[in-house]
């Protein structure tokens, strides 16, 4: 797929038809009035081979000139060619070997074995025995070997977590005897801080924080700090100048929001916060009036409201007299559909009011009014046995706001961030067309007409990096910063982008034009 940073420059391609028109004239004999043909008749007529040679030379000159123009235009337009790499079918296989599956182990194993042997010979298999051995990028034979060695154990294991690792797979097959999904739940994407330029991308998966750090210059390792309420951990990562590197560290286990920071001298803006969702519903302290819609909304998004507390996270129906110590949400149930107010950390400024009913999840949860939302798309992962939907995240659209919903019940609890997040970001990228050549932060929230956060997305095996926090990102930027190269494992990055550097394009284009001129100037 071709993309252009400056599509207007493509108008210069109109020069090629003009060249072709001139070429037609050049290919035809040039009409020349001559005083008399008397003496020409004494010469033999030109051999047809020589005429053909002359025309071939004119054709070559046209081809070179057209190539030169195309190269110059490509350079001026900043054309990029995105080529999906050929990829063999990739299948994720999760086999439940927990103690609870022991009774059905023969059936589970038999189904998995038949499934594996039925795969195409070139298939790439990511297989996980839960709990037990796992292997990525295996051949069918190797996966069968892993399955053969598997035995049920009493060790703890989470089939959903294992399946979530395979969201890049074209197909995920989970072999278990667990029951099917519970009732529909709604996942809320929390707002995060606005200043995330230093950390190019941030996500949490499988208990790991995955962040893409970039730096403009310098050779020293980048110091990073992961801050949670309970404390902070630090480390360093070597990031080549002008490039990006993947930071992979254990995620804090609190389920609370955390901030990943890098030194201010390395980046103009230096932190990214991720509001993680825990695997099990956390408690949240609520102050103010007791509101049934709010309580239902919080419960629907997996939060257990607890009245009071030293540091209430949610204020219902009133604004705190002093700024809360940590980000808090203020809900005004008097508006029928809750409005949102947000404090950000230590600000002394009045509460920032976000427009009424901008939180579709609260609205949806409070009113159970999903009919007002437009279903955009659903994506499903299924158990092969039993034949039930494991996770069915659904994307909704409401007034330009993206919403997704899914079944939060175990064993799906981690699919919120591992499946639905990517789906959300992929949809955001598809709908909002972020500017090309940007590697962008991650996080997550939605507000009004603009998604106010961004994310690192793996969907259909394609790594997406999306920034939708800055509305300016939605318009072609005047000065696009250099795109950092994402140093992800090679098997993760399955699409490549090839951009013709403007200097190379200019040199190539001018060379071709000069060559064309020389060819056209060459006398027969």
């Amino acid at each position, binding site marked *: 797929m071709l993309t252009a940073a400056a599509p207007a420059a493509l108008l210069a391609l109109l020069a090629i038809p003009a060249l072709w028109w001139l070429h037609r004239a050049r290919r035809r004999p040039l009409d020349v009035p001559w005083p008399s043909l008397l003496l020409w008749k004494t010469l033999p007529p030109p051999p047809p081979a020589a005429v053909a040679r002359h025309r071939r030379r004119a054709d070559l000159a046209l081809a070179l000139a057209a190539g030169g123009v195309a190269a110059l235009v490509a350079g001026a337009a900043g054309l990029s060619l995105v080529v999906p790499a050929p990829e063999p079918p990739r299948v994720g296989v999760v086999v439940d070997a927990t103690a609870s599956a022991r009774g059905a182990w023969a059936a589970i194993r038999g189904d998995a074995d038949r499934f594996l042997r039925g795969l195409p010979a070139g298939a790439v298999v990511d297989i996980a025995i839960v709990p037990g051995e796992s292997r990525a990028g295996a051949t069918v034979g190797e996966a069968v070997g892993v399955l053969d060695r598997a035995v049920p154990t009493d060790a703890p294991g989470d089939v959903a977590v294992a399946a979530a690792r395979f969201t890049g797979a074209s197909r995920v097959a989970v072999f278990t005897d667990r029951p099917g999904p519970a009732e529909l739940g709604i996942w809320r994407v929390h707002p995060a801080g606005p200043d995330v330029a230093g950390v190019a991308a941030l996500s949490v998966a499988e208990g790991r924080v995955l962040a893409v750090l970039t730096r403009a210059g310098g050779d020293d390792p980048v110091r990073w700090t992961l801050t949670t309420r309970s404390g902070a951990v630090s480390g360093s990562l070597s990031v080549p100048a002008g490039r990006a590197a993947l930071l992979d560290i254990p995620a804090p286990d609190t389920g609370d929001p955390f901030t990943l920071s890098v030194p201010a001298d390395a980046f103009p803006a230096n932190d990214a916060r991720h509001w993680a969702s825990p695997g099990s519903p956390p408690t949240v302290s609520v102050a103010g009036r007791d509101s049934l819609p709010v309580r239902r909304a919080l419960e629907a998004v997996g939060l257990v409201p607890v009245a009071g507390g030293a540091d209430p996270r949610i204020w219902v129906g009133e604004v705190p007299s002093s700024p809360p110590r940590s980000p808090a949400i203020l809900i005004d149930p008097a508006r029928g559909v809750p409005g949102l107010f947000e404090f950000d950390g230590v600000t002394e400024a009045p509460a920032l009011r976000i427009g009424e009913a901008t939180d579709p999840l609260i609205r949806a949860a409070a009113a159970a009014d999903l009919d007002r939302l437009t279903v955009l798309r659903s994506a499903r992962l299924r158990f092969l046995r039993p034949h039930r939907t494991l996770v069915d995240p659904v994307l909704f659209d409401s007034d330009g706001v993206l919403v997704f919903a899914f079944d939060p019940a175990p064993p799906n609890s981690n699919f919120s961030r591992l499946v639905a997040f990517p789906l959300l970001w992929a949809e955001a990228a598809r709908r909002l067309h972020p500017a090309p050549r940007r590697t962008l932060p991650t996080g997550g929230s939605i507000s009004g007409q603009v998604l106010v956060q961004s994310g690192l997305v793996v969907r259909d095996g394609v790594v997406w990096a999306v920034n939708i926090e800055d509305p300016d990102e939605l318009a072609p930027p005047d000065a696009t910063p250099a795109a950092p190269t994402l140093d992800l494992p090679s098997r993760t990055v399955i699409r490549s982008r090839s951009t013709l550097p403007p200097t190379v394009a200019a040199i190539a284009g001018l060379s071709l034009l000069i060559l064309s001129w020389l060819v056209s100037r060459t006398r*027969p």
Partner: protein
Amino acid sequence: MLLSSPELARLAALAAARRHGAPGAAGGGRPGPRLGEGGEFAGHRGYTAGDDPRLIDWAAYARTGGLHIREFREQVEGSLTVLLDLSSSMAAWEKDRTARRVAAAAIAVALLSGDRARVVPFAGGRDFEPGGWSEPAEIGEMDRRVEGYPSGGGPAAVAAVRTLLRARRGRILLVSDLLDAESPGAPLVALRERGHAVVVAHVLAREEASPPRGLLRLRDAETGETREVLVDDGTAVAYARAVEEFCAGWQARCAAHGMRYARVVAAAPLADWAGTAC
């Protein structure tokens, strides 16, 4: 104006030199440049093989015992007729203007030498009013007349030359590029045999021998006929050689029949051709 004042002064000097019999003078009514069988007796020379036996001076043989040939200086009438080619082939590269300048210069020399002169323009499909003059004072009017003739038309050199076959003996100057399919060579020889002094001013442009390179469709300026040619280096050389051979052929033919041949390069200054063409 075809001729500037300095050029007229130069032509006046040329006419004066001819009145005094300077070498190369070709004034009308005066001994011509060719020794032959008619006209004023010029002297004897020894007989050589190939001489016409009728020219042997038998009286001298009786006196001296040796064979001698009588030589005469040719006498032509004191008039000049200029046949001026204004066909379409003359239109390119200033050939037309150069031909008019040659004609005007030759007439001016004749008038300054005390002779009469006239111009007979020709071009296929056109009728021209010939002009005639007898006084030097008419040079200005002659210049305007010659310059004002319209250009363009098909080949007509043969017909123009033939109109003079019955004219009184005199000097005839043909100004043309001679690029007619039907060559005027034979009628010119016929004129010469009738005692006319014939001068051929062959006007060609340098560009004529140096065609552009590439695939060309040449269109004959007079007939409209086209011919596709691919002019490479070899073709260009061959064509230049053909032009040279064409000129050399005319030069040899003129020499063989006692006619003077003057090659005039288009746009060349008067000094380059006045001595030979006028």
